[in-house]
């Protein structure tokens, strides 16, 4: 997808409006269903909330101030921590898998990638509840623990179950961009590095990591903030005890009907995403301009 280039088709004398007409339906959809809705919640995040549920309009910063309230700050802090852990684990494991795939024979690479794709395209809920079979009471892992003398009744709900299934849900998203940027690295660089006496860590730290930085940055962008918005996993595997920001947003909108506060929280998530996309964009630009130089 990154290789799409503007084709230099001959400029036509007539029908200059044609491409814009072709783009019109998409632009109308994006404007009506994405841009305007986001403007509306941005505005709602400054609205006064009705204690009975609802939106009283007006202008206030209360919704943002409330997010510092210990009740909400706790969830926000916990979510940021979980997101950071998940992004870091996805990055390390994703890097290893991407490196492994990119160093296999060209004919085997597609097979391995498809092996990563199959769980990724499997229904998200199915992927999540599949873990309950494994970690639940009487499941293979509990039975295994009993065999080695550890008494445990069930690993669902638990923090471990949440962490594992978050990794399971996001790992493929980290593998693809890292693999894409690793594939363009000249394999002879690895030989050159080892010929010059660089060890494994040095070869990676000084050659592979810098050259695959665009993929690494994209992987972090696609795992960190999106983890904040997850709401299914904390309920199904965490027992709902430690909600993520996603759970809070769902509750605020569907149960408490506190739209302004929910909107403010959504804006925080959105801003974090914009920020991480901007950082990833800068990294990609810097690395590419260095490559060109």
């Amino acid at each position, binding site marked *: 997808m990154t290789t799409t280039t503007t084709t230099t088709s001959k400029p036509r004398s007539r029908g200059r409006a044609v491409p814009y007409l072709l783009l019109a339906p998409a632009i109308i959809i994006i404007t009506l269903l994405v841009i305007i809705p986001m403007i509306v919640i941005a505005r709602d995040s400054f609205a006064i909330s009705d204690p009975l549920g609802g939106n009283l309009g007006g202008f206030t910063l209360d919704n943002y101030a409330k997010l510092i309230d210990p009740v909400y700050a706790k969830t926000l802090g916990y979510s940021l921590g979980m997101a950071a852990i998940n992004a870091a684990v996805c990055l390390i494991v994703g890097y290893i898998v991407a490196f492994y795939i990119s160093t296999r024979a060209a004919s085997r690479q597609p097979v391995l990638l498809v092996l990563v*794709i199959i769980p990724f395209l499997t*229904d998200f809920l199915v992927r999540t509840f599949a873990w309950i079979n494994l970690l639940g009471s009487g499941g293979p892992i509990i039975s295994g623990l009993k065999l080695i003398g550890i008494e445990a009744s069930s690993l669902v709900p638990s923090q471990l179950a949440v962490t594992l299934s978050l990794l399971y849900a996001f790992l493929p998203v980290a593998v693809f961009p890292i693999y894409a940027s690793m594939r363009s690295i000249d394999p002879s660089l690895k030989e050159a590095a080892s010929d010059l006496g660089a060890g494994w860590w040095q070869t990676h730290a000084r050659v592979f990591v810098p050259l695959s930085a665009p993929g690494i940055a994209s992987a972090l962008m696609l795992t960190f903030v999106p983890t904040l918005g997850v709401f299914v996993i904390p309920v199904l595997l965490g027992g709902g005890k430690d909600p993520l920001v996603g759970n809070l947003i769902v509750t605020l909108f569907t149960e408490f009907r506190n739209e302004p506060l929910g909107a403010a929280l959504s804006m925080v998530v959105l801003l974090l995403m914009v920020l991480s996309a901007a950082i990833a964009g800068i990294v990609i630009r810097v690395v590419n301009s260095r490559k060109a130089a």
Partner: protein
Amino acid sequence: MDRVVAWIARLVFVFLYIPIIALVVYSFNSADVSYRFEGFSLRWYAELFADQLLLDTLRTSAIVGVCAALLATIVGFLSAFALVRFRVKGRAFFLGAIVIPLIVPEIVLGVSLLTVFSTANVPTGLVTLILGHVVITLPLATLVMMGAMSALDPSLSEAATDLGATPWVTFRRILFPLLRPAVLAAFLLSFTTSFSNIVISTFTAGVGTTTLPLRIYSSLRTGLTPELNALGTLLVVFTLAIILVVGVGQMRRILAGGTPPPTN
């Protein structure tokens, strides 16, 4: 160290498949509780097909999936065609606008759609579900088809034009047949994305409409049943079928970007 890394990677592949294998195995379990395996049985599949409520939600998901995927594929095709085959001023702007839903966290898209629908007094239901799903599938469909279009040899359409074909004939007889696999891929990927969506559906479905994932989620809150394992197994098979139809090579280009490296 390379060997250690290779072993870790192999273990990760095992990690990716253990839950799926467990799912399939437990779906054939004859025991009433999902965890303990007692013997082979197809009873959960039988119960699955007798569950009318579940079949209703399956139908809803199929309708939403087909409508959303059709819309996304048609609109995405037009956009991709404009962006690849024409010189468009502000190309980066248009492309950027179309891929916004891939960058904005889905939950933010969901709550903003809910807010707008309730502000504009649009009743939530089948139509709002479809609209919500179009938003998330459109960028996917557009990018898949853009990839295929920019990989087309430009000399093909030039040759057709030189031989006297009108632009429409060139499109219908040369370009579209070549793009058909990509159009199918875009449709199928949009369909699966819509079919398995839970986040957007949570906010756009409304009270009376339930999709299959929403139904699975609400029944999971009271616990995992063997019936759900059977359903999950069928969904895994369905995913495999889609990947086979789309084709391994195309799948790779879609997800990892770019053209494959030269094989040597």
